[in-house]
């Protein structure tokens, strides 16, 4: 057979939480891979936010299943470039209302968060943001993520019903 694939594609442990991640809260570490257009993710988001965790959110847009996912993730990442807290505000906003995902709805969300709209528009279409989304996605692939929502907690990959899964894995 030909030369082996580049090592960036084979199995690897999930990356530990670093400064480049979106992470906040106090408590045990939980790394979640989410899709911002995933109904199951939206349904559990309020409960997940309320858990006593250091919650790290990574991008896992499944574009072929939900065509607006990459756009929503790029919007959240663009918000973060203006103000770190705006990442969480944008994710909250998108999950609270899954029915409005078109560009004008994203502009309205950005304005409500008092973001600079011109910069938001440039950033969400930038190569930097696209590369960030892909890096998160591929790290998830290498760690064995096959759908959303997924989480890593206490060294385990949890998929499906995350709230009871996290409560059990972390004895919350």
């Amino acid at each position, binding site marked *: *057979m*030909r*030369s*082996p*694939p580049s*090592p960036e*594609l*084979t*199995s*690897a442990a999930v990356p530990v939480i670093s400064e480049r991640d979106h992470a906040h809260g106090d408590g045990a570490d939980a790394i979640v891979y989410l899709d911002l257009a995933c109904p199951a993710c939206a349904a559990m988001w309020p409960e997940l936010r309320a858990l006593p965790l250091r919650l790290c959110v990574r991008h896992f847009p*499944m*574009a*072929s*299943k939900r*065509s607006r996912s990459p756009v929503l993730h790029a919007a959240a990442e663009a918000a973060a470039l203006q103000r770190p807290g705006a990442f969480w505000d944008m994710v909250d906003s998108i999950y609270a209302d899954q029915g409005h995902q078109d560009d004008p709805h994203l502009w309205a969300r950005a304005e409500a968060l008092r973001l600079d709209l011109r910069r938001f528009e440039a950033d969400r279409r930038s190569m930097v943001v696209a590369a960030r989304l892909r890096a998160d*996605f*591929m790290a998830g*692939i*290498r*760690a*064995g*993520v*096959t*759908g959303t929502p997924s989480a890593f907690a206490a060294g385990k990959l949890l998929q499906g019903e995350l709230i009871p899964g996290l409560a059990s894995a972390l004895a919350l």
Partner: protein
Amino acid sequence: MIEPGTKAPEFTLPNHRGEAVRLTDFAGRKLLLCFYPNDFSPVCSDQLSIYQEVLAEIRAEGVELVGISTDGTWSHNAFRKQLGLEMPLLSDFHPKGEVSRAYGAYLEDWGTPNRSLVLIDEDGIVRWVHASPTPLEIPGANLIFDALTAVA
């Protein structure tokens, strides 16, 4: 499940457009057969979506990925459109499951293929297989890249 090192069973199946596709069409190329239970089911949709997201990387390794289930060609056609899938989907519809059985990838109880991957080399020899413990478990795309590394 078919064993690595054995010759891959020949097949002729219609694809999502009703065109006949043969194993021998892939001679000289690596072929990854992805047997899956059902078009449109939630787990199968996740699995093929994930593979679609890394299809460029799989093809960059000289591997053609092909999905196989017992659904009909019209179902395959609609399923591909719904998910924007670019890999061919083959229909093991009639006689039902015959090719899946030949690869040891058929679940008699379910009446569908099990979720299974079969990597066939340029000479038509099976080099790697993976059968999910249950059809509800998706083999991650990382396992495909691990296999390509291991058999290179």
